[in-house]
C-alpha cells in the first residue's frame, strides 16, 4: 500500500512528472467534428436567463430574510438565499471560469468575479488551479483541487457541508495574499505575470469583508454577515453534496476520465444550482462544451461511458462505502462496468501508475 503525498511540491507530484503521468494525453470518446462543433457553440441567452433568475431570487430571498429578521419566518428565506450564495456561486465560478457560460466575454468575466467573491476563492489564483485540475485530474501531487484525499478525513468532509474547512483556509490565505501576493504553493501554478493581480483581488476582498464586519459592529447585529460571508457556510451544503460525487471513491492517477469522474442524474433544482455539472465525465472529457449543451453531449457519448448514477442518493450509496473502505485500504477504488458498446478503459498507463491497487469487483 502506498501513502499518498498530496503536496504540490512533494514526491508524488515529482514522480507524476517523471513518469509522464502529468500532462498526459487523456482518453476521449470519438465524436465527429461536425457534431462536436455544434455542441461547442456558444450562446448568451441560456446563461442570461439563468443569471436573471439566480440574482433575482437572491435579492428576493435576502429582502424577505431582512424584512422578517427577528422572527422564525426569516429562516426559510435565509436557507434559500444561502444555497444560492454558497452553492450556486460554485457552479457559476466554474462555468464562467471556463468562459463557456456566455458567448460574450465581459458577461463571463463579470459573473466569474462575483461568484469567486461569494465562494471565497481568489479569482486570479483559482483560474489557474482549475486549469491544473483539468490537465492532471486527480493526479496525486499535481491536482490542487482534490476534494477527498486518501485516507478520507470524514470529520473534515462533514465540516465541509458547513463550509468550515474552506472558510478557515480562505481568510488566512486572503490576508497573506493581500500582504505579499501568492503563497509558495500557489506560485507553482500561477504564472508570475498574474501575481500582482492575485494581490489586488485579495486586497479588494479584504476591504469588503472589513466593511461588512464594521457594519455588523456598528449595527450590533450579524445581519450584514447573513448577507455577505456567512451564507458561504450555511448554504455550502449543496455544492459539497454535488461536488463530492464528482470524483469520490473513484480512481486517482489515471488518464481516462471514465475511471475518475462520475455522471449523476439529478433533479431540476439541483441541476439549476449546479449548472449541469452532474454530467461530470462529459465535462472533463470535453471542457469546451457549455453547460447548457451537456445533456446533448451526454446523449451523444453515453454508449462509451459507465452507466450514470440514477440519483444523488444512489450515487452516495455507491460512494460512501468505497470511501469507508479507503480508510483501511488507501488504494481501493470503484471501477464501474462499461457497456458492451464502450471502448475498454485505458489501462496501459494505469497499470504502472496504480501499482497494486485493487478496484472493486
Amino acid at each position: 500500500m502506498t501513502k499518498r503525498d498530496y503536496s504540490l511540491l512533494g514526491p508524488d507530484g515529482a514522480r507524476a512528472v517523471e513518469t509522464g503521468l502529468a500532462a498526459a494525453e487523456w482518453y476521449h470518446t470519438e465524436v465527429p467534428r461536425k457534431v462536436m462543433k455544434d455542441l461547442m457553440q456558444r450562446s448568451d441567452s441560456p446563461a442570461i436567463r439563468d443569471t436573471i433568475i439566480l440574482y433575482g431570487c437572491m435579492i428576493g430571498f435576502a429582502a424577505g430574510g431582512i424584512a422578517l429578521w427577528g422572527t422564525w419566518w426569516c429562516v426559510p428565506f435565509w436557507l434559500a438565499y444561502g444555497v444560492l450564495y454558497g452553492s450556486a456561486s460554485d457552479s457559476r465560478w466554474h462555468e464562467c471560469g471556463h468562459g463557456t457560460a456566455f458567448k460574450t466575454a465581459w458577461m463571463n468575466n463579470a459573473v466569474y468575479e462575483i461568484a469567486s467573491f461569494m465562494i471565497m476563492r481568489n479569482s486570479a489564483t483559482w483560474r489557474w488551479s482549475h486549469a491544473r485540475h483539468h490537465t492532471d485530474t486527480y493526479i496525486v501531487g499535481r491536482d490542487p483541487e482534490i476534494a477527498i484525499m486518501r485516507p478520507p478525513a470524514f470529520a473534515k468532509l462533514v465540516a465541509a457541508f458547513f463550509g468550515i474547512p474552506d472558510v478557515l483556509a480562505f481568510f488566512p490565505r486572503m490576508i497573506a495574499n493581500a500582504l505579499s501576493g501568492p503563497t509558495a504553493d500557489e506560485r507553482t501554478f500561477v504564472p508570475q505575470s498574474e501575481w500582482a493581480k492575485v494581490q489586488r483581488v485579495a486586497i479588494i476582498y479584504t476591504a469588503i469583508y472589513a466593511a461588512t464586519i464594521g457594519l455588523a459592529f456598528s449595527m450590533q447585529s450579524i445581519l450584514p454577515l447573513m448577507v455577505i460571508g456567512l451564507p458561504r457556510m450555511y448554504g455550502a451544503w449543496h455544492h459539497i453534496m454535488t461536488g463530492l460525487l464528482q470524483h469520490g471513491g473513484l480512481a486517482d492517477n489515471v488518464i481516462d476520465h471514465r475511471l475518475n469522474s462520475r455522471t449523476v442524474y439529478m433533479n431540476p433544482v439541483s441541476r439549476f444550482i449546479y449548472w449541469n455539472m452532474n454530467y461530470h465525465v462529459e465535462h472533463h472529457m470535453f471542457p469546451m462544451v457549455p453547460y447548457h449543451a451537456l445533456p446533448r453531449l451526454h446523449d451523444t457519448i453515453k454508449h462509451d461511458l459507465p452507466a450514470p448514477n440514477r440519483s444523488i442518493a444512489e450515487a452516495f450509496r455507491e460512494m460512501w462505502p468505497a470511501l469507508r473502505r479507503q480508510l483501511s485500504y488507501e488504494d481501493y477504488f470503484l471501477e464501474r462496468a462499461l457497456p458492451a458498446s464502450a471502448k475498454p478503459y485505458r489501462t496501459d498507463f494505469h497499470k504502472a501508475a496504480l501499482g497494486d491497487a485493487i478496484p472493486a469487483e
Partner: protein
Amino acid sequence: MPQWIRACATDDIDEEDLIRFDHAGQTYAIYHSPDGKFFATAGKCTHEDVHLCDGLVMGHLIECPKHNGQFDYRTGEAKRAPVCVNLKTFPVKVEGDDVFIEVA
C-alpha cells in the same frame, strides 16, 4: 530557407473552422475565417502540449480545447487566460483552389 508548402485545398476547411497540417516534423493549424480568408499558426497551444485542431473557431479567435485559452489566429495574440504566450503565425497564400503556407 523559407519555402511555400501546399497545406490543403480551400474547400478542405469549412468557414469559421480549422484543420491540422503536419509537415517535416512540425504541426500547424490552418484556419478559414468567416470572411473567407485563410491563416496559419503553430498547431499546438502555448500553454500546454495540446493540438488546437480540436478547438473552436469563433470569429477571429481560436479557443483551445483543453482549458479554453484563446488566441487571435490572425496575429497569434494570446487573448484569454490561461494562455499568456502568443502563438507563432505563418504567411499564407491561396493559388487557385490550394492553400500554401510559408515555413522556415
